[in-house]
């Protein structure tokens, strides 16, 4: 009997320690703020006040309740904690409020059956002193049933209140970061913002507009898709004055997902650039597709009649054509081409009275 008194006194002292300023104690957790690390009904053992970010501590601003949360920040005078299952951190608390660091925790599944068995053994051993008599069939059977019901009741009391479908599942996703046309090569660049899904490969890719529908080749680099649209397609769009095309892209994503994307693309076209540099006229195609141009050079020597020299050019993307008119006294150059469905002509004077 003396041993049982000692054990009872020891257990009582352990639980009473939390009401003292000493950094030792045994606490029960309640609620679900520390799920999944700790569950309601778990026992935590606090020992010492040395703690750092990442440690679980017990702090309290009142003698009646304590908080068991994880340290997420420490300043010179305050501590910021957060429950593992909480979306936001707690208000900063003074370091003086910290009771101590959690050094161990005993899950409820372990301590509850053990404690019940101990209590049961104690009651059975001291049944006569306690005035309990298991001397009949009915009493023994009732005791077994009562112990069982008590255990279930304890678990129900400790269980968090949960409704079915309480755990939302967020599927990974991907959204469009942007679609742009490379001004140098005319590739359509499709960039995605990954929220757990990455583009692995493209299974189908077509562009369509009033020009028609064509299949395109493509490359995938780091989740970005580069669609190679035929240059002739852009050239035809320019001729027809079509400003938009629709890109249909089918791709396989991570997690075996499939993407069916449809994007409106607006490639920008530019007219041919005609510039003069000294006696030389330069015609540059700034587009990423070939442009056909009719170039007429008008020249005259002193007061004679104007001569015309016309040529048809097919300027490739970025290509430059130069005309040196230093041998002429008066000259200008006229460039005619189709820009966005309309024929435009640009005329630049190159020489005047033998001077540029």
């Amino acid at each position, binding site marked *: 009997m003396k041993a049982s008194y000692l054990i009872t006194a020891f257990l009582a002292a352990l639980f009473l320690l939390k009401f003292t300023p000493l950094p030792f104690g045994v606490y029960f957790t309640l609620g679900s703020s520390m799920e999944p690390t700790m569950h309601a009904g778990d026992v935590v053992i606090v020992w010492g006040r040395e703690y750092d970010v990442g440690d679980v501590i017990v702090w309290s601003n009142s003698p009646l309740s304590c908080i068991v949360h994880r340290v997420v920040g420490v300043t010179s005078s305050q501590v910021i904690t957060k429950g593992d299952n909480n979306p936001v951190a707690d208000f900063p608390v003074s370091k003086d409020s910290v009771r101590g660091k959690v050094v161990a925790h005993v899950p409820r599944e372990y301590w509850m059956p053990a404690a019940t068995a101990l209590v049961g053994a104690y009651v059975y051993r001291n049944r006569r002193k306690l005035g309990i008599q298991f001397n009949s069939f009915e009493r023994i059977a009732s005791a077994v049933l009562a112990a*069982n*019901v008590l255990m279930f009741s304890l678990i129900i009391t400790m*269980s968090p209140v*949960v409704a*079915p479908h309480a755990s939302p599942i967020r599927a990974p996703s991907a959204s469009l970061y942007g679609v742009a046309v490379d001004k140098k090569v005319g590739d359509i660049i499709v960039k995605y913002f990954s929220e757990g899904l990455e583009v692995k490969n493209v299974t189908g890719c077509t562009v369509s507009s009033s020009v028609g529908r064509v299949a395109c080749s493509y490359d995938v680099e780091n989740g970005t898709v580069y669609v190679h649209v035929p240059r002739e397609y852009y050239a035809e769009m320019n001729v027809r004055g079509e400003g938009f095309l629709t890109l249909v892209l089918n791709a396989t994503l991570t997690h*075996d*997902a499939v*993407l069916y994307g449809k994007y409106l693309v607006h490639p920008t076209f530019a007219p041919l650039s005609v510039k003069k540099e000294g006696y030389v006229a330069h015609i540059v195609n700034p587009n990423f597709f070939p442009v056909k141009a009719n170039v007429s050079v008008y020249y005259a020597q002193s007061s004679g009649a104007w001569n015309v020299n016309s040529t048809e050019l097919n300027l490739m993307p970025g290509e430059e054509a130069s005309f040196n008119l230093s041998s002429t006294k008066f000259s200008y150059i006229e460039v005619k081409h189709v820009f966005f469905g309309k024929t435009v002509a640009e005329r630049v004077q190159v020489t005047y009275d033998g001077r540029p």
Partner: protein
Amino acid sequence: MEDRRLWTLALVFGMVVSLVGIVATVLPLYIFDGNVRGYVSLASYDLTVFGEKYYSLSLEAVKPFAYLLIAQAVFNIIAIAVSGAKTFFGRKSVVWKAVAFGAMLSTLVGVGILYGCAHIVSEETKPLLADFSHETSAGKIVFPKTMCYPQPAYLLVSNFIPLALTIIYAITMSIAYAFKQNLSTEG
């Protein structure tokens, strides 16, 4: 003699009920394959959803009940084994028979808890089979269907087998107990 036969029959039913309880609690109810992988049983679960470990508050809440159901079944088996052995060898076993009777009454409570837990697990796993396809600014994202394979343990908890066995167990043991009482009264 009649008393012994009825008790033996009741103990056999009790043993079957306990084993069914353990099987239904420990073995997986469902096995998932696809973007959701893993298994779910009443006592444990190991699921990965889109490659990430899945944690469910409901499934965690079911675990302690499952542990207690297992402990109850084991206790029942021990009580049945001891009282059965004593009955078989013709020794007096009032205490162990009383314990077995108490365990049987507990099983009546336990079978309800078993169905309740199975219902929670079933409801909790339903969202795992949802169609996760959705539309974003990138387009329509379609995920392959997750396959769910119900296991033998699911067949046990999805019908009335455990309940029927428990009721038969309870009736048999109660008749055995009432028969004994009659014998005692008459004697």
